[in-house]
């Protein structure tokens, strides 16, 4: 019964989404308040229906209902409870349902959070979200129904892909999707503003916290995926420029640009049409990410569900939603004029450079991700693009961008004189250089060309970001949450650059063959291979190695790398043994059984690689703090602070 109930709930949700979309757009357009009044109940109803469907699917997984095709394909009687729940989004159909569920939840949050905004504007935002939700629901019901029955029921399920049976990956998709879906809110605000034909600074103030929260979740989602790849895929790297990784990275880069451009629109009323375009672009890249992963256009580690019929549907969906928004943009954006000016070296100009460089970086990733597809579509020989393209090309826009962060946080709005900040910039830069010399030549030793550059930029960003808050704190002035959040996020960026620089410069790696009892040394560390024993888990068996790691004679770690063979799908997986010592990550993976008791073993020492992951959490925390700033919470205080909108809009067309 539950699957049928779930499907029925989805159909009702589709109808409610249609109502929400129609009345949300048409109500304000024809100025019919009674139509507009339908929107909020439709939002609530849709959420209840989608949540019901979600509960039905989760229950089918928990209860081992193998008469449901999707459950039979992605679960098994030996699968532990946690992964039975995570298996809901372990493949295409359930991932979509999760997407829809999160969108419905965001929509409810918008309906509540935006209730202080003008009613016609809120209705339009909800209407646009209704269109997106309608398209996703239609797609799910038409091509990817998770509730299809299997007749006769399978005696047991084919199990969740063993690669996905992992705590980090269990929460990676929800985090990522909360981010993607959150950008739908920014998109809806942008489209609503274009429908209104009016966009002022208050608009940017409404949009900012939503965008920042979405960006924070996306940061965490991406880094969980990276962390997972690090220890689960067994080859010990944190970023591979895999198409699917890029698909989540592009909206993040564009979203970062959007956050900064929104700040300018909010504070100074500038960059209006550019901000709108970025909001559209960011959500489009989120949709494109979904498309690339789900359509079978790209073959990658992640594309576990490929189906061309679905590809066509998503493409049509992209054309309607993105094409529609861009057409609206071409029509309405010319009406938005920014009249205020700014000087070179003002904060506006730094944020303008920030945006240009971030968009170049996005374009670099986009070009590399799409090149194989474009070559293929045009009939050129297949081409593969990897790290040799991405690393050097990506660094070109990113190095100046990092330098600009340190400069930009010290700049002032409007005025192009750094003034007293000049001294601070020089002092922080000097400290950064001194610390880098100490790090690169004292602590770590040898260095590559870019090593000192990376360290200096990282430290400069951190110190320069801290200068102003510390100064205010010493003078007993308050620091707003907005500034505090920004500072945290920039410190996070500095920490990320530290981590990447250290890992790229000082990773030590060895592949050795070892028998139990043997010891091998690398750097100041010695690794003793004690034993390898058979090992059994809930739904796999395998072997588990026992290693003792010593540093200058002192035992610091016991590591247990595993090789697992999952029973149902008979897939072999490497589970690396990982430990930390003095900020270095010690990575140990068991390779092949070479016979005669010998094993191939991969050893890696990666200094500060943890910083890469920690940094995303610092950035996300910064985002959360900034989004909770009082400015965004009260409509009254916001209205009181708002400077009369600079530049006009075609009032006649306002709805």
């Amino acid at each position, binding site marked *: 019964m539950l699957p049928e109930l779930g499907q029925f709930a989805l159909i009702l949700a589709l109808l409610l989404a249609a109502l929400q979309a129609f009345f949300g757009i048409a109500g304000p357009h024809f100025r019919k308040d009674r139509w507009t009044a339908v929107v909020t109940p439709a939002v609530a109803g849709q959420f209840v229906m989608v949540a019901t469907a979600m509960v039905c699917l989760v229950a089918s997984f928990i209860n081992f209902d193998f008469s449901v095709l999707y459950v039979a394909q992605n679960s098994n009687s030996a699968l532990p409870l946690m992964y039975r729940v995570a298996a809901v989004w372990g493949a295409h159909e359930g991932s979509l349902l999760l997407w829809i569920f999160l969108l419905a939840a965001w929509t409810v949050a918008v309906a509540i959070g935006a209730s202080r905004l003008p009613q016609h504007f809120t209705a339009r935002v909800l209407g646009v979200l209704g269109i997106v939700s309608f398209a996703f629901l239609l797609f799910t019901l038409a091509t990817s129904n998770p509730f299809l029955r299997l007749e006769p029921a399978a005696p047991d399920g084919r199990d969740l892909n063993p690669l996905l049976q992992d705590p980090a990956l269990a929460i990676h998709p929800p985090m990522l999707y909360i981010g993607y879906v959150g950008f739908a809110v920014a998109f809806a605000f942008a489209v609503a503003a274009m429908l209104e034909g009016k966009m002022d600074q208050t608009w940017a103030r409404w949009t900012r916290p939503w965008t920042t929260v979405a960006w924070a979740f996306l940061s965490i989602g991406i880094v969980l995926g990276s962390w997972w790849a690090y220890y689960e895929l067994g080859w010990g790297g944190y970023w591979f420029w895999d198409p699917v990784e890029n698909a989540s990275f592009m909206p993040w880069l564009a979203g970062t640009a959007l956050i900064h451009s929104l700040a300018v629109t909010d504070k100074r009323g500038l960059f209006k049409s550019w901000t709108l375009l970025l909001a559209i672009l960011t959500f489009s890249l989120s949709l494109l990410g979904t498309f690339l992963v789900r*359509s079978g256009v790209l073959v*990658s580690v992640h594309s576990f569900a490929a189906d061309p019929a679905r590809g066509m549907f998503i493409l049509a969906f992209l054309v309607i939603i993105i094409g529609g928004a861009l057409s609206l943009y071409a029509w309405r954006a010319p009406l938005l004029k920014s009249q205020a000016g700014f000087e070179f070296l003002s904060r506006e100009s730094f944020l303008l450079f920030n945006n240009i460089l971030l968009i170049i970086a996005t374009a670099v990733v986009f070009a590399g991700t799409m090149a194989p597809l474009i070559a293929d579509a045009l009939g050129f020989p*297949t081409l*593969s693009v990897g790290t040799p393209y991405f690393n050097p090309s990506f660094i070109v826009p990113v190095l100046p961008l990092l330098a600009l962060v340190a400069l930009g946080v010290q700049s002032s709005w409007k005025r192009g004189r750094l003034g007293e900040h000049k001294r601070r910039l020089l002092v922080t830069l000097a400290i950064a250089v001194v610390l880098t010399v100490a790090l690169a030549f004292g602590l770590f030793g040898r260095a590559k060309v870019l090593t000192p550059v990376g360290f200096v930029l990282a430290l400069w960003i951190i110190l320069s970001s801290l200068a102003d808050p510390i100064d205010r704190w010493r003078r007993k002035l308050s620091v707003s949450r907005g500034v505090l959040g920004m500072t945290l996020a920039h410190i996070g960026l500095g920490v990320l650059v530290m981590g990447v620089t250290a890992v790229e410069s000082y990773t030590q790696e060895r592949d050795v063959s070892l028998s139990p009892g043997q010891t091998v040394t690398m750097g100041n560390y010695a690794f003793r291979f004690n034993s390898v024993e058979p090992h059994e888990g809930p739904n796999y068996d395998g072997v588990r190695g026992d290693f003792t790691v010593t540093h200058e004679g002192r035992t610091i770690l016991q590591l247990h790398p595993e090789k697992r063979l999952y029973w149902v799908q008979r897939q072999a997986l490497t589970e690396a043994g990982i430990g930390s010592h003095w900020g270095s990550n010690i990575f140990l993976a068991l390779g092949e059984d070479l016979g005669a008791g010998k094993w191939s073993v991969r050893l890696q020492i990666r200094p500060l690689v943890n910083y890469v992951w920690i940094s995303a959490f610092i950035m996300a925390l910064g985002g959360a703090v900034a989004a909770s700033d009082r400015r965004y919470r009260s409509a009254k205080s916001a209205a009181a602070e708002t400077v009369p909108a600079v530049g006009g809009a075609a009032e006649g067309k306002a709805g």
Partner: protein
Amino acid sequence: MNRFILPLGGFALLVLVLFLGVKTSPERSTLQSVLIGKPAPEFTLPDLMNPGRQLSSKDWAGNAYVLNVWGTWCPGCRQEHETLLRIAQLGQAPLIGINWKDEDSLAHEWLAQLGNPYAAIVSDHSGRTAIDWGVYGAPETFLVDSQGLVQYRHVGPMTMEVWEKQFVPRITGKPVDPS
């Protein structure tokens, strides 16, 4: 013509590319292409393990063999490697590797570290042979029967499930489970 139309134009181009991509994807993932049931494309390429020597597809004529296209630059190949080692142990058909657009030294290092599942490996530096086989992206795995006809193509990392459901029945001549 105003500059605000430019994003729309760019998007239209992208849609065109994606459309072509989706249209051709069925052939890529299941290879309903010309190759199935047709003679396998011939090749003569340097032996990876013994670069002075040339190996030819004719060397395996008369036996069924499995052709695997891989490269050290390809994460999917790393993922399927352990599966290939298991398949090699089963010994149901010899595994012939095409090392695609790779450097020999990297390939040697890879095999030394991870083990070598292949009965023989040829180096396709230019990528020409892979084009003849219609390879879209590594890894890809083909089954060629004893008459030299291509019987099956799998795109993406090999799994034991695909091996047992699709390759083994075709090698042993048993009916294939349509699922």
